[in-house]
């Protein structure tokens, strides 16, 4: 028997200890939001948080995380959440229309959430570093980058204006990437 806490709920599991955490969470606990992409820790689709740190669960044996706290994409916001109940990272993803096929986005959001928890105002280079382990085959990288900056802005605004954040006011403004005019393009 192996004990594990997932999204705040403690489980006692009768599963072989070498089973990767991903398959335990998906097939035993029934939380399917975390995805299988490579089975080798190369793509990040399976990313969850172990005590707040992003980990590759497709290569993490259950026995190695026994007794620990795991958070999955389902643990970020309530079930059937309205847009206002989402985390700033999820809100930014939604408002910038980040997902295409969407398969990698649980992992991307978990990686971005961990980044912003440790670095509330990341530079582009910080984002490159933190997100380089998460592949998006649809190529949504420019929007992921914009969404991380946007979420960072929402979170810092929420710190300085907590009441407005609770009312969802900070998250209501939809800004979509617009066609850029030539004069707006940077030439360094």
């Amino acid at each position, binding site marked *: 028997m192996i004990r594990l806490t997932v999204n705040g709920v403690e489980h006692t599991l009768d599963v*072989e200890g*070498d*089973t*990767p955490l991903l*398959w335990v969470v998906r*097939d035993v606990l*029934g*939380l*399917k939001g*975390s*995805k*299988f*992409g*490579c*089975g*080798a820790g*190369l*793509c990040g*689709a399976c990313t969850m948080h172990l005590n707040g740190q992003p980990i590759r669960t497709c290569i993490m044996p259950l026995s190695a995380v026994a007794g620990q706290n795991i958070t999955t*994409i*389902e643990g*970020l*916001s309530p079930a059937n959440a309205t*847009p206002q109940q*989402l985390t700033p990272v999820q809100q930014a*993803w*939604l408002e910038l*229309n980040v*997902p*295409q*096929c*969407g*398969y*990698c986005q*649980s992992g991307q959001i978990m990686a971005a959430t961990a980044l912003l928890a440790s670095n509330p105002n990341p530079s582009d280079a910080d*984002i*490159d*570093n933190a*997100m*380089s382990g*998460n*592949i998006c*085959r*649809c*190529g*949504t*990288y*420019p929007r*992921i*980058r914009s969404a991380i900056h946007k979420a960072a802005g929402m979170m810092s605004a929420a710190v300085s204006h907590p009441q407005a954040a609770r009312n969802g006011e900070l998250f209501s403004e*939809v800004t*979509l*990437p617009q*066609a*850029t005019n*030539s004069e707006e*393009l*940077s*030439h*360094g």
Partner: protein
Amino acid sequence: MDKSLRTSTYTNTGLSRRSFLKASALSSGGLLLSVALPGCTAIGMKNQGMVSAGEWQSNAWLRIDTDNRITFILDRVEMGQGTYTGLVTLLAEELEVDPALVQVEFAGVGSAYDNPLYKLQITGGSTSVASSFKRIRLAGASAREMLKQAAAQVWALENTSTLHCDNGQVIHSNGKTLSYGELASIAATFAVPEDTALKSPDEYRYIGKYNKRLDALQKVTGQAVYGVDVELPGMLYAVISRAPAFGGTVKNLDSSAAKAASGVVDVFPLKAAGRSGVAVVARSYWQARKAQQLLQIEWQTPEVAPSSDAIFAQYARDLDNEDGEQVRDDGDFDAAAEQAASTLTAEYQLPYLAHATLEPQNCVVKADADGMEVWAPTQSASMARVAAGKHSRYSLDDIVIHTTWIGGGFGRRILQDYVAECAVIADRLQQPVKLIWNREEDTAHDWYRPASLHRLQATIGADGKASGWQHRIAHPKVFEWFVGDAAPAQYPFMPKLMFPMLAGAGKLGEGILAPKDSSGYEGANDVPYALGNIDVRFIHSEPGVPVGYWRSVGFSHNGFVTESFIDELAHQQKQDPLNFRLELLAQHPRAQSLLRRVAQLADWGRPLPGCHQGVAIHKSFNTWVAQIADVQVEGKTFSVKRVVCAVDCGQAVNPDMIRAQMEGGINFALTAALYGNITLKDGAVQQSNFHDYALLRMPEAPQIVVDIADNQYDPTGVGEPGVPPLAPAVANALFAATGQRLRRLPLQLA
């Protein structure tokens, strides 16, 4: 702009509404409007399949229930390309409802919404919005008029002239309202009106403006159910070890250790969709994977087991020895060659490419005495049913296909091998089974973008000007790998024993019963430049490697070749590559204006600091895309800093969806330009996972600027056309930076 084209977007074009719309009442009350949408094209078989469609076939359904629920049931699938949002936007525009209030369901095949004479349906070819632009709006408009007629009846009005619709309600000029739900049952008693006018573009509320992605919420919360997420009670898990070489078979199998492993239910050899292997079925996925490691298999290598070098040598031999099929013949190229003062020749080589969808292939099948049910992330439910039928004891009538969200398609899921395999396993076990491929299996057993070899020759006349263009292409026929399931999918009423005959007839019927397979030469035979004497030839060369449709198909290689070689010609002529193209595109004003736009946005001639620029323009799926890449070279490495992209896809339906598809297409193509290379040794693919088949990552992703031409031509495809211009734009920038002309992909500086 041409006025006749402008008006054609909103006047009735002679299409009789009764030919594709039917109204009926729901048994629960409410209105059901059945719609026949044109099929997806550009993948071998055109709209109406191999036989002419006489009978009426619905494949989309608008349902308005008495509780005001509005549901749009579609046979198209959502792979990330935004079809779901695009089609709902068209419907909502005329129905006068917020698109976010329309629920979409996937129709599948064999479901309540299926038509017994259903023909081949594929989501591919960047056609969903383009092919349905008029019909879906007419469906929405017709439903709206029927709801108004129902309101007129309730309010005892002589006609509907005092009524209008807004926000899901019919509104009387006196202020009274009735909701669509209240009126749906009455509306169902009226015939579909014949003379409903569509809105003119200046009346659009959503088309060209609606930028909310309707599937985003469930994709940022992990709630969207993909094929790999489907779960049934009592479900078992299967994995398959496949022969490494294509056409290989099981020579010897010792499965005793695997059978004895924990949780294992069954181990057995199988053959499905042309591939031999050994299936391991267990109570959990991980148990199946562990037992798979214990299999002792000796493989019989097939007689034909090519390696990459041999394949390109075969292409070269065929180019040396064969005239091939002429697919473009303008003027007299041979005469131009005889009279030429000089010629420019080049050979281009492109590799096999895997699709590498992030969701590996998978399928869930439940087979029992009642029939077979299949859940699959497939781009073609009708072909999935044929695959399941061919590989089981069930007849097509007893097979139901459910489609799911798809974790990337790019053409991979037009083929149905994962369905075939899982059907074999479930048919044998008579228990629900989920088959999951791992990444290594997915990379090594794809239906690849074909490798190709190209020889080009441009002639320069005595006046020093370009006088002719010849392009000869050695490439297999993708159609021949696809027709096995596609041909029978058009005749689902035929007994299964006829399937091989239908597949054979499909092969023979290429160009007669079915359109010609242009996958080798599309984008080459329609080279747009006014070069006078043009000769394009397709040399059919078949190495025996499974090939399929890969995002932008033939345009993916011919875009690179033609746009690189025209750049070579520009430099030979000592002309600016952009101006040279502009001069030769006088017959294509939309292309010219797009090139001018992209040049303006990218500040052509003034690269970003430390960068060099390259330009390319290519038309695919009726959409022109021009791109300028700013590339920085450091030694033998380079990085793409920015791509400016201008697209002309006619009337934009969801502008932000178009921008997203251009961004995605550019990054997809950049993966191919930087890394994509599937190689073979003794008939087996040498790549396995993302360490040796690399995909683009965040630090390599360039800044992307997208500009959408503002016009009201009928919309054209956006899912694929962003791909072809990228690799040549980057290669042309590398030439500008280094003087090295790179004629092979992936791009490697010497």
